[in-house]
């Protein structure tokens, strides 16, 4: 017991410090710092077109993280590991449906997103009706999806992205920004509206913060939770379609690289895995932060091994800023 310590402990921390401690602000400051670092290491890193390219990559990650974010806010150890499989599946399905024809884009999106939502529905039903922990359910579903990918790859020829889709993702669309960035901004607005202005949004926080109390207050807990997983599946599928546009053709398991990073983006954005808190603005910043970090590491000339070590260590360092749990002895 410290008897003499901390006379000033109870002094209210100044507003400025509070502001600087907000995850979103931390993420933005880090983004700026990383951009400056990148520019110093390799001039041109922070050029407008380079930043745009980074944002395009980040938006795919950000769209996956949108669904992940909702699931995590919904609490009860909410997490969706199946997004990796859904992204891949959606990319393959969309590629086959459109197969290089612009007229096929809309049906392709419809098919991909419906299938993604369907798998989300399976997840949600398993988690709510059978009360399987989300980690286990979505992990099992990931195995199923990976198996399905093998079947599909063997059964049907791999498709191509329609030119208009590739253009939408990679070429300037309005005000010089590619369409996918506009799409991401629209999703950001949609998420803000969903979480702040709809009863559904209020209820997500309610079930995430205290499921039992929410139930006693008449919140349809199961329906909401199923909805979250459906949305997560749909967002992942949408990201898969975008990814198809980015790479031109679909190849196996493209989505796996999004599974855990989408969770990291959410955590770096200030949404704790415990649920009941957080929002999407921070997650968007978290996605950008992750992508810039990866990009800097590819810019500097070090081995793959060094790159991975630095990336892992940096992630740990970043987490020290945010996701730390409370001390037992408060």
């Amino acid at each position, binding site marked *: 017991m410290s*008897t003499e310590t901390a006379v000033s402990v109870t002094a209210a921390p100044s507003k400025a410090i509070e502001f600087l401690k907000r995850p979103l602000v931390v993420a933005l400051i880090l983004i700026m710092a990383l951009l400056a670092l990148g520019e110093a290491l390799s001039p041109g890193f922070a050029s407008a077109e380079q930043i745009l390219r980074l944002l395009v990559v980040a938006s795919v990650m950000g769209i996956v993280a949108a669904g992940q974010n909702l699931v995590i806010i919904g609490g009860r150890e909410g997490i969706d590991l199946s997004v990796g499989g859904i992204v891949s599946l959606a990319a393959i399905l969309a590629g086959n449906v459109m197969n290089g024809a612009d007229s096929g884009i809309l049906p392709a999106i419809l098919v991909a997103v419906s299938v993604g939502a369907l798998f989300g529905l399976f997840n949600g039903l398993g988690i709510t009706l059978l009360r399987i922990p989300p980690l286990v359910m979505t992990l099992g579903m990931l195995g199923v999806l990976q198996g399905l990918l093998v079947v599909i790859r063997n059964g049907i020829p791999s498709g191509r992205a329609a030119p208009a889709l590739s253009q939408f993702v990679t070429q300037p669309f309005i005000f010089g920004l590619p369409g996918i960035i506009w799409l991401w901004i629209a999703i950001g607005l949609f998420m803000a509206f969903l979480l702040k202005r709809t009863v559904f949004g209020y*209820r997500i926080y*309610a079930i995430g*913060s*205290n499921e039992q109390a929410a139930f*006693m*207050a008449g919140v349809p807990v199961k329906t909401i939770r199923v909805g979250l997983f459906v949305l997560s599946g749909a967002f992942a599928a949408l990201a898969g379609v975008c990814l198809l546009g980015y790479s031109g053709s679909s190849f196996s398991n493209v989505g796996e690289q999004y599974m855990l990073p989408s969770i990291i983006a959410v955590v770096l954005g200030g949404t704790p895995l415990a649920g009941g808190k957080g929002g999407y603005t921070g997650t968007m910043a978290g996605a950008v932060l992750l992508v810039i970090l990866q990009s800097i590491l590819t810019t500097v000339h070090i081995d793959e091994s060094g790159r991975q070590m630095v990336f892992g260590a940096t992630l740990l360092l970043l987490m020290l800023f945010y996701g730390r749990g409370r001390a037992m*002895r408060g």
Partner: protein
Amino acid sequence: MSELLIRGARKAYGATLALRRGDLRLLPGEVHVLIGSNGSGKSTLCKIVAGSVKPDAGEVLLNGSPVTIVGPQAARALGIGIFYQELSLAARRTVAENICLPALPTKGSVFVDRAALEAKAARFIEAFADVAGDGFSADAPVHTLRADQRQLVEIMKALASEAPILIFDEPTSALDRAQVDRFFEILRRLKAEGRAIVFISHRMDEIFTIGDRVTVIRDGETVGTSKISETDQASVIRQMVGERDDPATPAVAPPAHQAQPSAVLSVAGLSGSGFRNVSFEVARGEILGFGGLHGQGQSAVMRSIFGALAHHAGTIALNGKQIAMKSPREAIAHGCAYVSGDRSRDGILQGRPILENVTPIHFLRNRLALVRPSSLRERAMQPLPALKTKFQGLEQPINSLSGGNQQKVVIARWLIDRPDVLLLDDPTKGIDLAAKTDLFALIRKLAENGMGIVLYSSEDAELLNNADRILVFNSGSVTRELTGADRTRYNLYHAAYEAA
């Protein structure tokens, strides 16, 4: 023989000051009662002594020499054992393992010595064997036990520390009378052995039965210590509430309210897990009390009416219309409201703003899909002042309020859209006297405006003072109805213990 002295203990959580200046002098061979309204800092003071809370300032002297308690382990080493109000049990471990968990008997300090563990646990289980009830055994996993039995395990765990200083933070809140009596016998024996015991309870009768000295804490500050033999309930309560209005409950005989004849809630032959064949009616404007020992089905009946607990027989009708009550949603939609005493489990949305804590019922009853913040805030502001809720703004997280104010926020959520029936399931558990007074005043007003109210309280005085009619529960059935002048403490006790 240990003498403990705490001076100027202070603890703040963020901007909230939980303990301003805690002083306590604990002597060997005494039961020292710590009393104060909820949120006054009693538990914080105890946890500082037990090492689970780190104080910001203050000193602790053990037998005259200053000590530093760096954690629960250190506290144990210094000879301090504690009963935690919120219990510190591992639900999936057995009763015996839990009792011995702080210091598992080992072979070679690596392997668990099962035989020694069971022998040690058996000694403490033995002491409560005849009052612990069904299903209580050394190898029962704790999660299979009832609330009172879990509390007994926590008591045994504290006793097993064999510490010269023992702290009991509300150890009796779920116990029945026989269990409390047994516990007090043990306390007296420990006292005779020269142990120093801190005892916290909200029940005045217990305090005056077992206590030697009493220290009153108000708003995080020690107000004073006096000998139990030289004080009385009234002066203790005066010390607890300070300059504020006398919060003493209204006259023992409440005014017989003119109940309107129409029954707003009728329950017939209701049976389910923990209760059977319960029938009653509540008229508009009436406060119906549920009495009896703790856990005799009162709470289960309410939760069943509210749709949170299944019933397998019987009918529930609101305003004469029979309703299945399959879920709280259905109950709420038909104008039923339920306030649980376990607010951290059933009530508050931790970490969320007051606004979000007040509005869920409003959303449901008006079938809203979109939120219009300005009008929503306006509605949320209506019921809060009526309950004299103290808060800074609707964006304030509910956790930053005191227990009583949290409960007021939870009650406020039901009052934006008036329900017809209000079920109060021990609503004042763990909240301070002033808040209780505010609550009961409001409840009476709601009844006068035509609401039908069912009130269960674990404090007999609250029932007697506020209920117009009392149904006494025993083993899941209503065994007696007390009306008019029959509502006396004697009758209530008598009916509760009948055949028990």
